[in-house]
């Protein structure tokens, strides 16, 4: 691919580059039988950030915050209304097909695989459509098949695959042409624990070995925790936070919950900074700051109380973000670049 040589204005540190990118939609709303009101909605309202080659970034925010609009602009599906946007030095909306060779996209809820055909047929199509050299295709396919455990699924029609199997199949389909960036939209939504672990393990390895840049949107904080060194929070079309996950917890004062099952009913557990928020017979719920180590806390409780079983619940993203706003007042921009 000679593309890699031409784009001299793209360095490794600003591999993905957004400079005051905006996206304004005209929305027509029905106000009466025939009357319609036109209204402008700023889905993305002046977002700027850069992503270096090889970074793994989580892109989170409530529904309708502007996450998928941003992804659609980054992949060339939508054209920005304002600002400057470059991916690998390419303006996505202008050179959509040229960019397509260099990016991989996985839409969590929408499979791009061929429903009635065996999985392998979809890969053969990718092979030819992206003009992947034979040796390269074989190598990439073998690797994906091995790491994503697709071996026995290749000859199964896609309609017979489970959701988790299909997601793994989709991820492989997005990677056969060696994309430099991989966009994932809710890659673990609806998957069981084992499938989630497989997908996450694979992405980690992909990033470590190939240096593939990964940008993912998710509702699952564990995805971020286990994969991303950096997280961006977007709401109302604006970047509210850009930094490490730990920093987000600090800003959002988020708490994890430790659910403890004891042998018998006891007085509420005393283990500051954790505090008991609920007691139900021998089961107690303790909230503790997300930044604290759960292991240390568990060790202390196990030493002092008759512990039978326990589990840790992660804070959900909506709660973290909601708290973040409560903590920062208007929230606009204050939290930007908090850590990092």
């Amino acid at each position, binding site marked *: 691919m000679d593309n890699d040589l031409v784009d001299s204005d793209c360095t490794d540190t600003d591999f993905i580059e957004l400079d005051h990118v905006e996206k304004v939609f005209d929305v027509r709303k029905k106000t009466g039988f025939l009357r319609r009101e036109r209204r402008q909605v700023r889905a993305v309202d002046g977002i700027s950030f850069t992503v270096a080659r090889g970074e793994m970034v989580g892109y989170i925010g409530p529904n309708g915050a502007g996450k998928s609009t941003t992804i*659609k602009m980054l992949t060339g*599906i*939508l054209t920005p*209304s304002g600002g400057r946007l470059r991916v690998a030095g390419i303006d996505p909306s202008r050179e959509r097909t040229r960019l397509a060779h260099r990016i991989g996209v996985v839409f969590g809820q929408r499979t791009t695989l061929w429903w009635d055909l065996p999985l392998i047929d979809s890969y053969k199509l990718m092979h030819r459509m992206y003009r992947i050299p034979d040796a390269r295709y074989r190598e990439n396919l073998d690797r994906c098949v091995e790491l994503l455990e697709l071996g026995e699924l290749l000859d199964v029609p896609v309609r017979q695959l489970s959701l988790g199997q299909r997601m793994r199949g989709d991820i492989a389909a997005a990677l056969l042409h060696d994309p430099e960036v991989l966009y994932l939209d809710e890659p673990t939504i609806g998957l069981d624990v084992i499938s989630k672990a497989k997908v996450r393990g694979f992405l980690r390895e992909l990033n470590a070995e190939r240096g593939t840049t990964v940008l993912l949107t998710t509702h699952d904080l564990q995805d971020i925790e286990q994969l991303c060194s950096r997280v961006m929070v977007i709401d109302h079309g604006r970047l509210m936070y850009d930094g490490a996950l730990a920093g987000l917890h600090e800003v959002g004062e988020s708490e994890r919950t430790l659910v403890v099952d004891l042998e018998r009913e006891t007085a509420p557990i005393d283990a500051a900074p954790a505090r008991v928020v609920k007691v139900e017979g021998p089961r107690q719920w303790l909230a503790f700051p997300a930044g604290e180590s759960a292991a240390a806390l568990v060790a202390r409780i196990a030493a002092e109380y008759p512990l039978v079983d326990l589990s840790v619940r992660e804070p959900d993203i909506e709660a973290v973000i909601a708290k973040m706003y409560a903590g920062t007042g208007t929230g606009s921009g204050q939290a930007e670049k908090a850590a990092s």
Partner: protein
Amino acid sequence: MVDGLRAYRLIGAMWIRSTMAYRASFAMTTIANFAVTGLDFVAILLMFSRIDVLGGWPLPEVAFLYGLSCVAFGLADLAIGSMERLGQRVRDGTLDTLLVRPAPVLAQVAADRFALRRLGRITQGALVLGYALGTVDIAWTPLKVLLMPVIVLSGAGIFCAVFVAGAAFQFVAQDASEVQNAFTYGGTTMLQYPPTVFGKELVRGVTFLLPLSFVNWLPAAYLLGRPVPLGLPRWVAFVSPLVAVACCALSGLAWRAGLRSYRSTGS
């Protein structure tokens, strides 16, 4: 262009393999396609069981019009007929998955749901055309013989342009996909009957505004030695390819505008 054709071929082949997963259903829908599209000719036969000429045209000549219209439309329908479902793809957001592929979207949408069952319409039209050619009274010259395939391909091109323009319109009005039926299915139905049947205004409209009459009315008038509709000169019979190219170019522009509006407004 080359990329587009290649993508079209690849995706079309995938759809053929997909339909072959349900062979029985494929056989049944192909037969149904043949029969449903043949109904119009049955209606014409029923009419001619009561009359000898319609609008001054006898059965073989009407069959000639019918065959040309059906085969031309059938070819366009086979090639890109699924574009009428574009609105659906815009509505459910699956168009996005096509936009991240390294191939022209038009080619991908055109090949979408490529269905060989549409050969049913072409077969049916070709049979009627064969019957017409066997019974109709044409003084064949080399030029006229040469004109035949040109007419059919030009007609297919004109209908393709209508399909593309219709799809472009669906970027703007996703729910109004039925509007294009009036021009595609309505168009081919109208062309099955002699131009003398219709009001002059209508004939003018489908000659100068939406040039459907170049699909068969004008060339057939020349071949059959009939007066050319609207008193046009005889050489208009040879203009069909140019009209087809112009229509395709215009609808290509409409498609671009439609896609641009999608990419600037989103779903």
